[in-house]
């Protein structure tokens, strides 16, 4: 009697399993589609931002974009080899404005190297930041001049100009005084980290 019950039970289980497997189960896709443009980050500046020494794809703005910014961020690097702030004013600002970026970073190491007149530097930088900020909500970050970028007195003067313009035109200064690495790739990572800290800090 027990054996017969077991046989009946076995057949019932087999049948229920068979019928249950007749329906296809499709994997539910719970991901949410992301739509529209993400935030746009534009980098302006000279050799260090362009990647003249480290390589274009390991330039610090590219590293910042790759490792520190959300995946939804789009990035355009308008910096160019050996360009100072006057070149940025002349050739990079208008294309940057047209792109309507959410974030702009400016580094001006080349001016310290070539010893640009601080007054001229200040005027050009002021024009660049005001043009970027004029009628926009663009966040502008200006890096302080790297300590080893030029003669100490030039670095001090340029940094003072950076501080003044940032305060006047509503930009934020990124302090690079602690950057000590000499290897271009490591240095790029350190600069990117400094920018990331400033971006993450409350405004």
């Amino acid at each position, binding site marked *: 009697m027990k054996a017969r019950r077991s046989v009946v039970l076995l057949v019932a289980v*087999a*049948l229920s399993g068979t019928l249950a497997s*007749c329906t296809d189960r499709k994997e539910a896709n719970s*991901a949410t589609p992301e*739509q529209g*443009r993400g935030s746009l980050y534009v980098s302006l500046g000279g050799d260090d931002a362009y990647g003249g020494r480290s390589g274009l794809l390991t330039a610090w703005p590219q590293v910042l974009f790759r490792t520190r910014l959300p*995946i939804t961020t789009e990035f355009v690097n308008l910096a160019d080899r050996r360009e100072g702030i006057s070149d940025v004013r002349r050739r990079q600002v208008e294309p940057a404005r047209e792109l309507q970026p959410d974030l702009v970073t400016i580094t001006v190491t080349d001016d310290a190297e070539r010893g640009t007149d601080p007054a001229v530097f200040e005027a050009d930088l002021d024009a660049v930041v005001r043009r970027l900020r004029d009628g926009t909500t663009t966040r502008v970050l200006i890096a302080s001049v790297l300590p080893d970028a030029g003669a100490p007195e030039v670095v001090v003067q340029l940094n003072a100009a950076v501080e003044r313009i940032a305060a006047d035109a509503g930009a934020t200064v990124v302090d690079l005084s602690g950057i000590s690495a000499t290897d271009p790739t490591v240095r790029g990572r350190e600069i990117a980290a400094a920018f990331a800290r400033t971006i993450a800090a409350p405004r």
Partner: protein
Amino acid sequence: MTWADSFVMAVRSIRRRFGRAVLTVAAVALAAALLTSLLIAVGAARSRVFAAVSKGGPLTGIQVLPSTPDFGQLDSDSAKIGDPRPIDEAARRRIAGLRGVKSVVALVSSSVYVVAPPPPKLNDPSRRAVAQVEPFQGTFTGVDLQRAGELPVTVLAGRLPVPRSRHEVAVTDAYLRAVGLRSTDANAVLGSEVEFGAPRLFASAGTSTIRGRWTRSTIVAVVAAQGAPGEFIGSFEQVRAARAWTAASDVGLDREAQRFAQELTGDSPYSGLFVVTNGFDSVGPVRAAITRIGFSSSAPESLIASVRRYSQVVEIVLTAIGLIALGIAALGIANAMLAAVRERRREIGVLKAIGARDRDVRRVFLVEAGLLGIAGGVAGTAFGYVLARLVGLVVNNYLSGQGLTGVHIGLPVVIVGAGIFGSGLLALVAGTLPAQRAARLPARQAMGDG
């Protein structure tokens, strides 16, 4: 005598001769299992072969290319490409309006600069991992991912990007080759991030520079794709944004710059169309109409027709083997029922003596045969499915080892129905002769012989 009485008597008879009933059911079950597993295996193999031939897309698909058709286009499954000819929205609509066309899926491609992540560590010690993946120029194809089921795309690993996603991407075998991997390494790239740089010319202060618009995307799938050129497949939105960026280049009157921008975006708004027809018979006429409109096309219609013919032959042969097994099982049922008639002559005589008619006696034996057949059909169909799944596991294990998509072992309702009710019907046919013999047995002879 009612149907319920016949049923109760049949069940009692089965219980009384339980051992023989189990053996009879087992014979039917084995035959049904053989037929079920063969049909499931044939179905799975056929769909796998068709999926391979059509690259996972519909069998009735036609790929349309942005070029005029060359001579002899319709005699060949492959595209015979003539001069370039853009596929614009008007052309897409015209093709979509052709008789026999079910749907048209547009493809958009863009040339992008690709920075791949560092190569993954491989478990196979015999293979040396690539130290560094060099950036390369690749092709990114955008499709309407909501209609991905209509495209010849087979997912080898992961899942397709979410429709309209701007940061998820599927990669093809071409990407794996570009980063020094094989199709068997598909799972290793899932979850990694790729950077795409769409180029654009900037003219400022008298000089031109090329600048990239960089985006990042997560690899969520490795796919085999036909008709979607290049290494990447993503949403329309992703590719259109990249094309728009490149198309906005400051070219002015600089011919070199104009040619550069044109080469990157191409002349054609759509890089191709994938046309799905209403049926396999519509593929030829629709291709002819597309050729008349002036576009080259490709469709594996000759290949699929050949595969269909061969698969039908295989199906007929295997079904015949299963039916022979069922026939043998039917003989077993007939034998068991004849033995039962012989053993139950006295019982039949008593039934007739108390007023049972011939048809009442016939019904008792037919119900018994039917019950044995259905029980065998249920057990056999279930066993056949389990058998097919086990074979499927072994086959899929082999296919995944080869970097190929596995087979899907499903159980169509038709096979379940045919397995159970076919076995029952066969048992009824097999039980007809014994039941007839029992019904015609005269009461006196039955009692006397007993």
